[in-house]
């Protein structure tokens, strides 16, 4: 009964969605306030029904109702509760249900918190949001129904893929989807602005918090996924330039560009058309990512052609939304008036530079990901595009971007003074150069590029501190004044500095892990010792353990540093009889920002065990940097001007910041 209710709730959500897709637009056209207000209730009710539907599927999983085909294929009665719950989205159908759950949540939030939006804008936004929702409700109901029953209920499920039986599955997909789907709000606002034919700084102020929130979650989601892959896949890589990863990186790059261009639009009323285009592109890339992952086109062009129902359906959704929105853009964008002039050297120009490089980086990822597919489809030639290609093309773009990054926040709006900024960045240059020299001194000529990367990272970190020091007049007057100024700084200024700092921290981690990592691959017998980068590991022996739904072979290693035992590492292999699969559980030991990483190979008949041991210096900084970036985003989001919402144009002078221009 519960699955049927869930299915029916989804149909009801579709019915409400169809209403919301049409009625508010008619209302906006005929100036009918009641019709426009209808969208508020339908958006809230849509969320209610989708949430009900999602809860119904969750209940089916938790109660192990194997008469539901989806539960049978992805669950097992012996699985721990947390994995039963996260298996809901550990499969195609359930993950699409999570997708629409988040989409309808965002719609409901606009309805609930968008009280200060102009009525027609809000009506259009909610209508567009509902078009997207309807397309995906239909996709689920017609091609990917998670509530299908089986004629005879099996006694036991097939179990969730063991690699997915990990806390990572509970956290990573929801975060990533909140990010992906969150950009739909920016998209809906862009389309609404195009339909309205009107756009102003207040628009940017409404769009920015939504984009920022989506960006925060996407940043965390990508970082979380990267860490999960790092510890699960057993060879210690943190980014693989896999098409599926690229699918999440592209919206992140475009979304980051959007955040920055929206600032220009909000502050200076310039780059309007470009910001609208970016809003459309960012969500389009989220849709393309969904298509790439969900259609099976990645595995091979042929597998896509052999079972095309889902793929073609998503392709139609793609063509409709991307093609439609870009056509609308081409038609209506010329109506939008450009504002705000600025000189070639100015904060605006720095942000244009940022946008240029971020979008080119995004294009590089796009081309690298899709080129092999297109080439095979058109000519039949098969090529591979992997990490070496991306490192060579994406890398330099990001280096250029990061080098210019400290200049941006220090330049004045409209007309900046490049020389003056360079002077103020002298200290940061000094820190960067010192870092280069120090790194060379420590490592010698081993990795030629690494010291320059370290220098760049330190330059950016010092640059964001200089920005804060300049704004608080630190070292230039009494400390009390600086403290007062610091308290008066808009939170978004802190956010910028913190987020930029975080990116540099991530860079540092990448350099450390990629350049100075060490590894040993060897066979060990019990009581034998291996040493690596100042650590000695003694193999104490193998133990059998049993988990809730697996048998594990656990190897025990005592780790010594300078002869003193510091920890015990226990890498394991888990055997899941339900799927006759073995997973490799690497053992990780965090020491400072570095990690020892130990994963197991096969045991030989003579009692020796193959192991792969890595030391990865600074590797934790990769993810720590992402968390810092996220905190920066959070600080920006808590900025007063976003918290109190966009003021009506007439009230604007009253909310002007008194001390500093924000950002």
């Amino acid at each position: 009964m519960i699955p049927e209710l869930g299915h029916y709730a989804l149909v009801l959500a579709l019915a409400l969605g169809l209403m919301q897709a049409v009625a508010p637009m008619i209302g906006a056209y005929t100036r009918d306030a009641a019709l426009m207000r209808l969208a508020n209730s339908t958006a809230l009710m849509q969320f209610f029904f989708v949430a009900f539907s999602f809860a119904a599927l969750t209940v089916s999983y938790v109660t192990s109702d194997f008469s539901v085909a989806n539960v049978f294929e992805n669950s097992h009665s012996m699985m721990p509760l947390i994995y039963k719950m996260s298996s809901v989205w550990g499969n195609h159908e359930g993950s699409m249900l999570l997708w629409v759950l988040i989409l309808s949540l965002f719609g409901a939030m606009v309805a609930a918190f968008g009280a200060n939006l102009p009525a027609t804008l809000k009506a259009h936004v909610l209508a567009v949001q509902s078009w997207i929702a309807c397309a995906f409700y239909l996709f689920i109901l017609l091609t990917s129904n998670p509530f299908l029953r089986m004629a005879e209920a099996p006694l036991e499920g097939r179990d969730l893929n063991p690699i997915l039986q990990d806390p990572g599955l509970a956290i990573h997909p929801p975060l990533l989807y909140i990010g992906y789907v969150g950009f739909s709000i920016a998209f809906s606002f862009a389309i609404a602005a195009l339909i309205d034919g009107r756009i102003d700084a207040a628009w940017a102020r409404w769009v920015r918090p939504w984009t920022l929130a989506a960006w925060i979650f996407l940043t965390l989601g990508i970082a979380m996924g990267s860490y999960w892959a790092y510890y699960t896949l057993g060879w210690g890589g943190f980014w693989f330039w896999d098409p599926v990863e690229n699918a999440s990186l592209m919206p992140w790059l475009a979304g980051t560009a959007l955040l920055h261009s929206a600032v220009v639009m909000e502050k200076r009323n310039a780059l309007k058309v470009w910001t609208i285009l970016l809003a459309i592109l960012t969500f389009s890339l989220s849709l393309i990512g969904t298509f790439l992952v969900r259609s099976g086109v990645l595995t091979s062009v042929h597998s896509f052609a052999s079972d095309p129902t889902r793929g073609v359906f998503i392709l139609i959704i793609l063509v409709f939304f991307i093609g439609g929105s870009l056509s609308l853009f081409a038609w209506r964008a010329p109506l939008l008036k450009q504002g705000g002039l600025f000189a070639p050297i100015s904060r605006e120009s720095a942000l244009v530079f940022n946008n240029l490089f971020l979008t080119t980086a995004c294009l590089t990822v796009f081309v690298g990901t899709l080129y092999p597919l297109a080439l095979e489809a058109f000519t039949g030639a098969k090529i591979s595009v992997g990490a070496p290609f991306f490192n060579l093309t994406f890398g330099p773009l990001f280096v250029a971007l990061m080098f210019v990054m400290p200049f941006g926040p220090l330049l004045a709006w409209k007309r900046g003074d490049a020389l003056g900024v360079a002077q103020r960045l002298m200290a940061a240059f000094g820190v960067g150069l010192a870092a280069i020299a120090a790194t060379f001194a420590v490592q010698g000529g081993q990795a030629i590029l690494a010291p320059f990367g370290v220098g760049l990272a330190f330059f950016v970190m010092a640059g964001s501190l200089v920005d804060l020091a300049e704004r608080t007049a630190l070292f230039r007057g009494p400390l009390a004044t600086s403290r007062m100024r610091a308290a008066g700084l808009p939170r978004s200024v802190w956010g910028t500095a913190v987020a930029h700092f975080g990116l540099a921290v991530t860079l540092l981690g990448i350099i450390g892990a990629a350049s100075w990592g060490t590894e040993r691959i060897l066979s060990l017998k019990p009581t034998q010792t291996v040493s690596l980068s100042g650590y000695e590991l003694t193999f104490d022996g193998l133990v059998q353990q049993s988990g809730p739904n697996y048998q594990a072979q656990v190897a025990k290693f005592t780790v010594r540093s300078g002869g003193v035992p510091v920890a015990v590492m226990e890498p394991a292999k888990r055997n899941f009889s339900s799927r006759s699969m073995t997973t490799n559980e690497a053992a990780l030991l965090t020491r400072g920002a570095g990690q020892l990483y130990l994963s197991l190979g096969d045991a030989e008949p003579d009692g020796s065990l193959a192991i792969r041991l890595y030391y990865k210096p600074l590797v934790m900084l990769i993810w720590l940097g992402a968390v810092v970036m996220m905190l920066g985003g959070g600080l920006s989001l808590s900025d007063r001007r976003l918290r109190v919402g966009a003021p009506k144009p007439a009230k604007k002078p009253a909310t002007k910041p008194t001390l500093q221009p924000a950002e």
Partner: protein
Amino acid sequence: MRRLATLALLVTLLAPTAALAVQPDEILKDPALESRARDLSHGLRCLVCQNQSIDDSEAPLARDLRLLVRERLTKGDSDSQVLDYLVARYGEFVLLKPRLEPHTLLLWGLPPTALLIGIFAVVVMARRRDKAAAAPSALSPTEQQRLAALVEPGRD
């Protein structure tokens, strides 16, 4: 999660028992040769995997390729000879970094071209905007008449 899902699928298909990528018995005695072998392996695709290099892959075929690379290196092949040999045998698909050839021109050329076009567009637009701002359009004849009338009242 999705990359894991696809990977997981492959693991089920290809590797019934999880093993290491590079195995201890594969490693060459000569550290210089071994490090060349590792560098080459990073750029070679495991043909049956999704976007994994043979250095990372647990698939038996990846092991065969790793052994093949080492065999060629010990026979005295240069790095490019090894790559040529593998491309002749398995096709260009085996290279994770495609060679610059007519059919990959677009792949390598598009990003830098796009950047140049972007810079060009930004400069042109800035110029156009400056011109529009610096030189306001000339007054129309009627406006000139009205201006004249304002400056010298009573002239007409």
